[in-house]
C-alpha cells in the first residue's frame, strides 16, 4: 500500500471576507505526480501556499508525513516540502550557486557552516538540472527558463520529499516548457520526489501526471486519473466552456484543443 504524504481534510480559508477555499479534502500519495488545475481565481495557488504555511488556514486540517501541519517548525517542514514559486524574478544580488546553496538552510544550524557534503549535494542538484555552466552568473541576468531551472535546482538541493510547484512552465516557450516537464519527470523517477504542480495547461497535466485535482470556486470539482478529465461534461463543469479533442500522434493520448472563433 502506498504511503500518504499529504492529507487535506475539510480545508477552508477566508481572506478579507472572501471564501477562497471551501471544504477541500484529498490525499496525496508518496511519489505521486499530482496536477492541480482550475480557472483563474479557483484557489489553486492559495491551496499550495497553505500546504507550505505561507498562508495560515482558517478551518480544517492538513497532515504532512503523519503529523499535523501546525505542529511543524518551519525548518522541519522545509525538510519535507520544497516550494518552487511562479516564474518569479528575483532582484536579489546573489549568484546562481549562492542561491542554490541557500536551499541547504533547513539542514544547517545557526552556528554550523556549509560542509563538503552540502557542496556535493548542491553540485549534484546543479548537474541534474544542467545549470552548472552558469553557476557564477547573477540571478538578475537569467532568462525565464534558466531561472525556473535554478528554482528547481534549489528545490532538489533542499532534499525534500515533496516539491510544490506553482505554474512551473508559465511564461516559458514550448522548448523550455518541454525541458522543464522532462526534468520534473526525471526528478520524480530518479529521486522518488512527489510533485504537486499547479498548472493552467491541461494537456501538460494529462501527459505528465498520475492524477489530477480540479478546483472550482475553492471547491474540489474533480479528482481522478488524467484521462478521465478529458470529458466535456467535466471540463464544462470546471471552466464553464466546451473544448474539442484530438489524439497525440505518438501516444494516442486524448488532448484538448480550444474552439476556433466562428466566422
Amino acid at each position, binding site marked *: 500500500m502506498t504511503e500518504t504524504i499529504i492529507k487535506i481534510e475539510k480545508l477552508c480559508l477566508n481572506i478579507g471576507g472572501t471564501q477562497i477555499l471551501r471544504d477541500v479534502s484529498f490525499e496525496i500519495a508518496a511519489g505521486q505526480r499530482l496536477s492541480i488545475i482550475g480557472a483563474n481565481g479557483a484557489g489553486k495557488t492559495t491551496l499550495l501556499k497553505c500546504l*507550505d*504555511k*505561507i498562508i495560515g488556514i482558517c478551518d480544517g486540517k492538513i497532515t504532512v508525513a503523519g503529523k499535523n501541519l501546525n505542529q511543524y*517548525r*518551519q*525548518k*522541519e*517542514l*522545509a*525538510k519535507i*516540502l*520544497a*516550494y518552487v*514559486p511562479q516564474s*518569479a524574478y*528575483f*532582484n*536579489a*544580488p*546573489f*549568484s546562481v550557486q*549562492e*542561491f542554490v546553496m*541557500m*536551499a541547504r*538552510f*533547513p539542514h*544547517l544550524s*545557526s*552556528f554550523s557552516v556549509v560542509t563538503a557534503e552540502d557542496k556535493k549535494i548542491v553540485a549534484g542538484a546543479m548537474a541534474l538540472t544542467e545549470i552548472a555552466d552558469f553557476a557564477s552568473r*547573477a540571478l*538578475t*541576468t537569467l532568462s525565464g527558463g534558466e531561472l525556473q531551472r535554478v528554482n528547481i535546482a534549489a528545490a532538489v538541493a*533542499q532534499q525534500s520529499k515533496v516539491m510544490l510547484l506553482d505554474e512551473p512552465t508559465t511564461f516559458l516557450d514550448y522548448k523550455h516548457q518541454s525541458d522543464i516537464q522532462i526534468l520534473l519527470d526525471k526528478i520524480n523517477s530518479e529521486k522518488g520526489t512527489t510533485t504537486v504542480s499547479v498548472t493552467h495547461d491541461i494537456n501538460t497535466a494529462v501527459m505528465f501526471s498520475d492524477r489530477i485535482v480540479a478546483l472550482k470556486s475553492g471547491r474540489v470539482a474533480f479528482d481522478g486519473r488524467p484521462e478521465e478529465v478529458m470529458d466535456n461534461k467535466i471540463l464544462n463543469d470546471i471552466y464553464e466552456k466546451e473544448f474539442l479533442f484530438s489524439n497525440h500522434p505518438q501516444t494516442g493520448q486524448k488532448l484538448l484543443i480550444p474552439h476556433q472563433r466562428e466566422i
Partner: protein
Amino acid sequence: MKKDRVLILIFLLAIFAFFALPFVGSTSVSVSAIKDFRLETVQGRIFYQIRLPRTCVAFLAGAALSCCGMALQAMFKNPLATPFTLGISSGAALGTAIYIISALPAAIMGFSVITISSFAGAIGACLLVYGLTRAAKGFSVATMLLAGVVVNFFFSSIILFLQYHSNFTESFRIIHWLMGSIEVAGFKTVFNMFIFVAGGAVIIWRLRGELNLLTISDEIAITRGVNLQRVRKTLFLATSIMVAGVVSFCGPIGFVGLIAPHICRLLVGADHKRLAPASMLFGAAFLGVCDTIARTIMAPIEIPVGVITALLGGPFFVWLLLKGSSEKSLL
C-alpha cells in the same frame, strides 16, 4: 575566493586604522607613549585617557550602525533603510532634549544623566514602534516601517516644540547633540557600549542565513524554513538595542549605517556570511577615520563627526556605484 581576499583586506585595513588613528591629532603622540601604562607623561595620558578610548568608541559605534543598517536593509528589502528608520534616534533625541531643558544634574551615582535620559527615550520609541507593529495583525515590515516613520515625525515635532520654548543655550545644545559627536574620556563608555554592540552583533551574526533569504523574498524565506515573525521580532529588538546603546552615547551619527553596508555589498557581495563582518569592520574604520578628521581638520575646534561622514562617504559611494558593473544590484 576573490571576495574572501577583499574581506581579509578590509580586516587588515581596519586593524591598521585602529592602531594608527590614536597617534593622529593636534598634539603629537609618539609610539613610546604606549609603554606609559602608569600615565606618568602627558603623552601617555592623552593616548590612554583620550585618544584610545575615543577610537574604541568610534569603532564600536561605526560597527554597530553599519551592522544595523545592513540588517534593516535586508529585512525591509529597502536600500534606503538606516539604523534610524525605526525612530529609535528620535526617541533618544527627545530624551536628551527633555534632559537639557529640565536642568537635571549631570550625573547620578556616577552615571551620566544625559546618557540615561537619551537611552530611556530610545527604548521608549522602540517599545512604541514594537507595540504599534504588534497591534496590527501579522507583524509586517510595512507596518513596522510606517510606525517608525510616524514615531520619528511625532517625536521630532515634540523636539521642535521644546526647542521653540527653550533659551538660546539650550537650543544650541540640542542642535549640537543632534549632529552626533564622539566625546569620551576613559574606558567606562567603551565597556558600556561594548555590551550593547557585542550582544546585538552576535544575534545578527546568528541570523546571517535568514538575512540572505529575506533579501530574496519573504515567500522563499518561509519555504526554506525561516520563521518570519520570530526573525523579524529578533532583528527589530537586536537592532533597536544596538542603536539605543550607540545613540545615547554619541548622538545620531548619520550616513555610516546607510553607506557602509552598500559599499561592502559592492566589495564582497551580498552573502551575509561575508557582508556582516565586512560591514562592521568597514563601518568601524570609516567612523574612526571620520572622527579623526573631525577633531583635527579645524583643531582646536572640533566639527561634529556626522558632518564629515556625509561629506566623505557620499562622493566615495557615488564613485563606487558608477564604477560597479550593471550586474551588481544594491539589494
